[in-house]
């Protein structure tokens, strides 16, 4: 085992953990002040539940070496057969367990943005358990397990997905779309502005996400080496380029650049470069970033056209961004970074694009269909949505007995703004 590689993956695991609180702020700032706590708690509930599932059986279903190409095995149940001395490549397997755990947490948390302000908290808890088990653990195996009995996308199809454009972003985006359809629109959708109640929080979230994402992407090299360096540089420059792209769309269309656009553009770039950061060059990353920034900026308007309330644009940013990044590998991958496999612009090869499309499509369809079914099952049994009256009052009060802010404090405890 290599202490340097281990040090970087330990640090990366911590970085990726932080992404979920970061997401809580990115999302939490975007909703109205009467729903921010629930929005944040949807992410924190992922932090509470997923690690327990992961240790009990999730890691095993995703990575236990005794599985097949569709699902891992059972040897790692309860993290059995792992000790401090067990290696995974050049790092302790415990470290790999930790690193991959963080991916599992954030993926389900991402979905919550599609159903802001209206989901029963208990139903969301149940959804996390079922969705992780039925959707995430298998898909993570498909994409991230490169072992002898590894996943079909990683080992048979050999589509490139360096850090999870399919397993994380397309997966979460498709699931978000499905849940937005199951739950329906918020009261007042299209009538009320529902503008972000705290844009500095959105920027804070974007900043923490970007920071953590270096662990996500450069950590996916599973070592401290030139590949990690490439992924790091690409993550920085594609994100920047996507911000430029998104802000340009706004300037052209609305004359002004918004802070919400800046934050969203950064996330769109991070999403798009996730699958591609190990295979494209830094110049290619600029292209990936700009394209993703522009396309996602346009895609967030789709929900108004098609009439689904994907409240915080999980579809527009994660689904669209994930697809863009996954497919652009087929155009921009360089032979030097792929071990000889070219792409349309670098060598004129079209095959890889096809593989990328198959991987993207498979995850999209699998996730959308399964999620829709899970959502409907929860809805018809315990009910997924709170009442209209409660929604108008604000889900924070109703589901958490709290209001986020109480800043009137001048007056002793019984501050003017307390209570219902």
């Amino acid at each position, binding site marked *: 085992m290599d202490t340097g590689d281990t040090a970087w993956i330990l640090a990366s695991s911590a970085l990726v953990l932080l992404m979920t609180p970061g997401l809580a702020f990115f999302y939490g700032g975007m909703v109205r002040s009467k729903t921010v706590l629930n929005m944040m708690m949807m992410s924190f509930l992922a932090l509470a539940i997923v690690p327990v599932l992961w240790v009990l059986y999730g890691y095993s279903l995703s990575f236990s070496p005794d599985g097949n190409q569709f699902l891992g095995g059972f040897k790692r149940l309860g993290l059995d057969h792992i000790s401090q001395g067990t290696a995974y490549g050049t790092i302790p397997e415990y470290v790999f367990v930790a690193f991959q755990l963080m991916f599992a947490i954030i993926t389900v948390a991402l979905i919550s943005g599609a159903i802001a302000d209206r989901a029963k908290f208990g139903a969301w808890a149940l959804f996390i358990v079922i969705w992780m088990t039925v959707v995430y653990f298998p898909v993570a195996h498909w994409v991230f397990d490169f072992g002898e009995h590894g996943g079909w996308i990683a080992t048979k199809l050999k589509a490139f997905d360096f850090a999870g454009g399919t397993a994380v972003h397309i997966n979460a985006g498709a699931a978000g779309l499905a849940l937005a359809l199951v739950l329906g629109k918020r009261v007042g959708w299209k009538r009320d502005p529902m503008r972000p109640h705290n844009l500095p929080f959105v920027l804070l979230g974007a900043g923490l996400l970007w920071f953590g994402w270096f662990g996500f992407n450069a950590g996916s090299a599973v070592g401290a080496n030139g590949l990690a360096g490439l992924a790091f540089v690409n993550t920085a420059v594609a994100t920047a380029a996507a911000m430029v792209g998104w802000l340009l769309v706004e300037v052209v269309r609305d004359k002004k650049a918004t802070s919400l656009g800046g934050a969203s553009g950064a996330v769109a770039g991070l999403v798009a470069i996730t699958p591609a950061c190990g295979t494209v060059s830094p110049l290619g990353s600029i292209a990936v970033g700009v394209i993703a920034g522009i396309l996602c900026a346009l895609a967030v308007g789709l929900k108004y056209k098609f009439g689904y309330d994907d409240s915080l644009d999980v579809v527009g940013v994660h689904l669209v961004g994930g697809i863009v990044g996954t497919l652009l590998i087929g155009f921009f991958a360089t032979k030097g970074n792929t071990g000889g496999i070219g792409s349309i612009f670098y060598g004129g090869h079209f095959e890889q694009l096809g593989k990328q499309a198959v991987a993207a499509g498979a995850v999209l369809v699998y996730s959308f269909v399964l999620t829709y079914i899970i959502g409907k099952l929860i809805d018809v049994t315990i009910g997924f949505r709170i009442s209209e*009256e409660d929604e*108008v*009052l604000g889900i924070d009060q109703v589901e958490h*007995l*709290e209001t986020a802010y109480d800043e009137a404090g001048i007056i002793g*405890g*019984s501050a*003017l*703004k*307390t*209570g*219902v």
Partner: protein
Amino acid sequence: MKLVTAVIKPHKWEEVREALAAAGVAGMTVTEASGYGQQKGHTEVYRGAEYDVSLVPKIRLEVVVDDADVDSVVSTITGSAQTGKIGDGKVWVIPVDSVVRVRTGETDEAAL
């Protein structure tokens, strides 16, 4: 002219606004307020401790109207703000000597 002041429940605000607009009220001024009344005395439990919450959030509307419109405005507000539960609020009417529109200097009826 009269000044109609109404204190209502926050989640009724949209309805009241629409009802007033439908009734032809062209303008009003709104503030956030806290109400103390019979609705008081509700007890909250939080982190294992109990508290009396004496103030509840309210919306406070002010509408200056012609004498002739007072009754209809008052009944529009009470009609649309009513839930039948304690704490629905109060409406009171005060005599107004004069009104001016800042933009034009028009006064009284013309200023509304």
